[in-house]
């Protein structure tokens, strides 16, 4: 149905044209789900945008053919193209939170779309809309349809989005990371829905995602992309099962498995990442040893509760607080890694902030190595824990001050905690630390924006280590990274943890990743602990149903495919 031949998309820039997609070839049949997989910057989304004709200015299709049935998409003028959108091709965006007009009722948005393409009465349009929402699994759609987007939960919203994309019965739907913003539970529901639509309604899907698990689960055929080029394509089982290309193999190797813990990922040296040079690495290593190796330190949380003031709605009565964490109690044994898993809103990050003293618990006690650990503002700026507990954040793009040089960022903890008073010594130490995390020494004089996400995350780790911490808190350190980069970072963290006997609290929504890191696991949901235990037991014989469900729903690849 859709045939794309040597499609080439270019973006003019002041450095001349940048080729975003080159000689792309693919085809999608009726009712086929075609996965388009690749790491960030691979040009997946650009392909989708080119097909539906929504390339961001000033990008343009430089070459190639795009045929939808017998319509040549490149020959259409502005108006024909617009008329075709929705009618025959439609699109689903990543974030359901932002893809609906917040000021319009769902009903209006649906009806408006239907009427835009079909000459039927409003009443008919409404009935169709209702049926559609039913089909999407929204109870008493007729009533719910009157609501505004903000009145739906994320999953529901994505269903509405899909309904909107479907309401005009398009032949092809381009789904750009449709489940990335969703929790596993919702994700699997949405994936099922897509599968069903493909089978029942015979809609063709182009499923753009970076998550190989998702592809493996529902894609019939798959195209692997890198740097705007097609690496290989074909039936999913064949491409992912017996990959021909090295890149595909590496990709598969980097995917963390859910069902077992692997010591080290097999990853190629990413460009820019150097293997720690003995001299330098050791220097920093020795410096760290002096501070850390002896007596690692543990954490204990006892009956910790965290609540935020709710939104005030009356002059008189105080709003009921919103409880973020309820009766949290667990131990982090010295020198071990505790993984904390949970869906969004489970309170993972709140927990991290509480430990680091950004948030004050309303009740409960925290201790570090037996000594009480005050929370929030009560923790003095010069409290020892300020130094001993360091954190690695989720977003590598915002965790480093983009206006400061790497050198300044790294040196900050050194002088702040008076660990190294001499300026030159600080600089040298920073350079060594960089090489320890696998970064070249030149990096020290550059600005964060000159590095990739993975590199920044390494720098963030270096910054944390330079405080000579005993406890390292990692809040979703890899969730913004591509799998291969994620693999590298996980390797790094494992290495450092082993080397310096760091106590690590590793927070992630991704069970597979946590399994690779954690000795013990804490499963959070809605601010409550559902299950605690050694990760082996929790992963193999979960007791809480919630844990069971999570494990069941996480998309996995057939064991057979593993390289």
């Amino acid at each position, binding site marked *: 149905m859709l045939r794309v031949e040597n499609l080439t998309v270019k973006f003019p820039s*002041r450095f001349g044209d940048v080729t975003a997609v080159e000689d792309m070839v693919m085809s999608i049949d009726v009712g086929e789900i075609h996965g388009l997989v690749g790491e960030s910057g691979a040009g997946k989304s650009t392909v989708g945008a080119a097909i539906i004709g929504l390339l961001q200015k000033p990008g343009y299709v430089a070459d190639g053919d795009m045929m939808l049935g017998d319509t040549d998409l490149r020959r259409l003028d502005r108006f024909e193209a617009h008329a075709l959108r929705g009618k025959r091709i439609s699109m689903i965006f990543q974030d359901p939170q932002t893809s609906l007009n917040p000021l319009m009722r769902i009903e209006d948005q649906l009806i408006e779309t239907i009427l835009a393409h079909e000459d039927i009465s409003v009443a008919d349009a409404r009935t169709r809309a209702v049926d559609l929402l039913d089909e999407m699994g929204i109870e008493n759609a007729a009533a719910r349809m009157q609501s505004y987007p903000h009145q739906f939960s994320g999953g529901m919203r994505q269903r509405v989005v899909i309904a909107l994309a479907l309401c005009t019965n398009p032949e092809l739907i381009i789904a750009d990371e449709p489940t990335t913003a969703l929790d596993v539970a919702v994700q699997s529901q949405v994936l099922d829905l897509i599968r069903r639509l493909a089978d029942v309604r015979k809609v063709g899907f182009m499923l753009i995602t970076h998550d190989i698990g998702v592809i493996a689960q529902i894609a019939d055929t798959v195209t692997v992309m890198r740097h705007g080029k097609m690496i290989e394509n074909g039936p999913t089982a064949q491409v992912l099962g017996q990959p021909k290309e090295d890149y595909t193999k590496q990709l598969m190797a980097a995917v963390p498995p859910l069902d077992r813990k692997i010591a080290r990922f097999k990853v190629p040296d990413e460009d820019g990442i150097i293997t720690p040079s003995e001299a330098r690495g050791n220097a920093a290593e020795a410096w760290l040893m002096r501070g850390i190796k002896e007596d690692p330190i543990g954490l204990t949380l006892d009956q910790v509760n965290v609540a935020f003031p709710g939104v005030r709605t009356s002059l008189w009565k105080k709003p009921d607080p919103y409880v973020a964490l309820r009766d949290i109690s667990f131990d982090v044994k010295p020198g071990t890694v505790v993984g904390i898993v949970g869906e969004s809103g489970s309170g993972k990050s709140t927990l991290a902030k509480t430990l680091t003293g*950004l948030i004050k618990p309303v009740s409960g006690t925290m201790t570090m190595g037996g000594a009480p650990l005050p929370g929030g503002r009560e923790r003095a700026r010069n409290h020892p824990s300020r130094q001993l507990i360091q954190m690695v954040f989720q977003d590598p793009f*915002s965790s480093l001050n983009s206006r400061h040089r790497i050198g300044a960022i790294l040196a900050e903890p050194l002088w702040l905690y008076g660990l190294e008073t001499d300026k030159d010594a600080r600089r040298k130490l920073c350079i060594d630390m960089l090489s320890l995390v696998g970064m070249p020494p030149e990096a020290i004089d550059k600005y964060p924006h000159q590095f990739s996400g993975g590199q920044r995350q390494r720098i963030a780790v270096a910054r944390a280590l330079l405080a000579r911490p005993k406890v390292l808190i990692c809040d979703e350190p890899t969730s913004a990274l591509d799998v291969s980069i994620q693999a590298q970072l996980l390797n790094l963290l494992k290495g450092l943890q082993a080397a310096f006997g760091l106590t690590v609290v590793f927070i992630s929504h991704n069970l597979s990743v946590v399994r690779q890191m954690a000795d013990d696991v804490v499963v959070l949901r809605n601010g409550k602990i559902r299950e605690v235990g050694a990760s082996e037991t929790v992963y193999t014989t979960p007791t809480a149903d919630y844990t069971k469900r999570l494990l069941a729903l996480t998309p996995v690849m057939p064991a057979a495919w593993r390289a």
Partner: protein
Amino acid sequence: MRDFIKRYEGLYLFSRSPAVIIAAIVGLAIIIGAVFAPWIAPVNPYDLSSFSLMDGLLPPVWEEFGTERFLLGTDDQGRDMISSILYGARLSLIIGVSAMIIATVLGVGLGLAAGYFGGRFDAVVMRIADIQLALPAILTALLIDGIARGILPPEVQEDVRVAVLTIAIALSLWVNFARTARASTFVQMNKEYVQAAVMQGQHPIRVMFVHILPNILGPLLVIMTVDLASAILLEATLSFLGIGLPADSPSLGTLIRIGMQFLLSGEWWILWIPTLFLVALVVSINVVGDFLRDVFNPRLR
């Protein structure tokens, strides 16, 4: 990546927008002329002995009766227009720039703190801002001016005129900065690099000024240019309302006010040449401001 590109992209875009280039040149020319007025200007218009009533109302050189001695003619005092304008532009800029700077320091300081500490402090600052907003620019200026007249002994009033105007204008501008700084600070507060700094136990002052401030400069810079323009205009307006600078040390605004008397009398140059300069100055500042806005907000391109 983002602001690295931006820096060079700024230059790149600049090189490709003739309007901005022209504006920049014109603006710079006037500013330089103003700054070096004492060396450039033919005579010093503040020195009463330097001009004579005899030369009064001479037209620009290209008109009939115009002389090379006064290229742009003279006013009713026999004062050389070029000199008056250069010195006038100088005063206008001094007032505009210093008002803008005061407003920036005050507004950004309060805004940052409000955004950083939030809570009560924030509430208080914002209420003060409300009050300020409820007293629009002109009224604030009139108020300050009135108070100054009242509390200062007459003999010093002339000398502090500039200061009074500056403060009055600054007060009417700071809210802009405060609100923007506050809003951007709120955004930055959720950025992880700020949390990291706080978590490490760095001093609030350091977090505010070393970490946050550099990251919110963009929008502030835009406001600075826009407000510089409006400060200069406001000064002109106040002069029109008769609470500007005295006529013997005229700003551009005062010159225009004086010129208004000659609107119909045929001595057009006394009104229109200073007006032309003022407009040229303000337009070029605004154009540059616009340009910066686009640079700092790529989405507007």
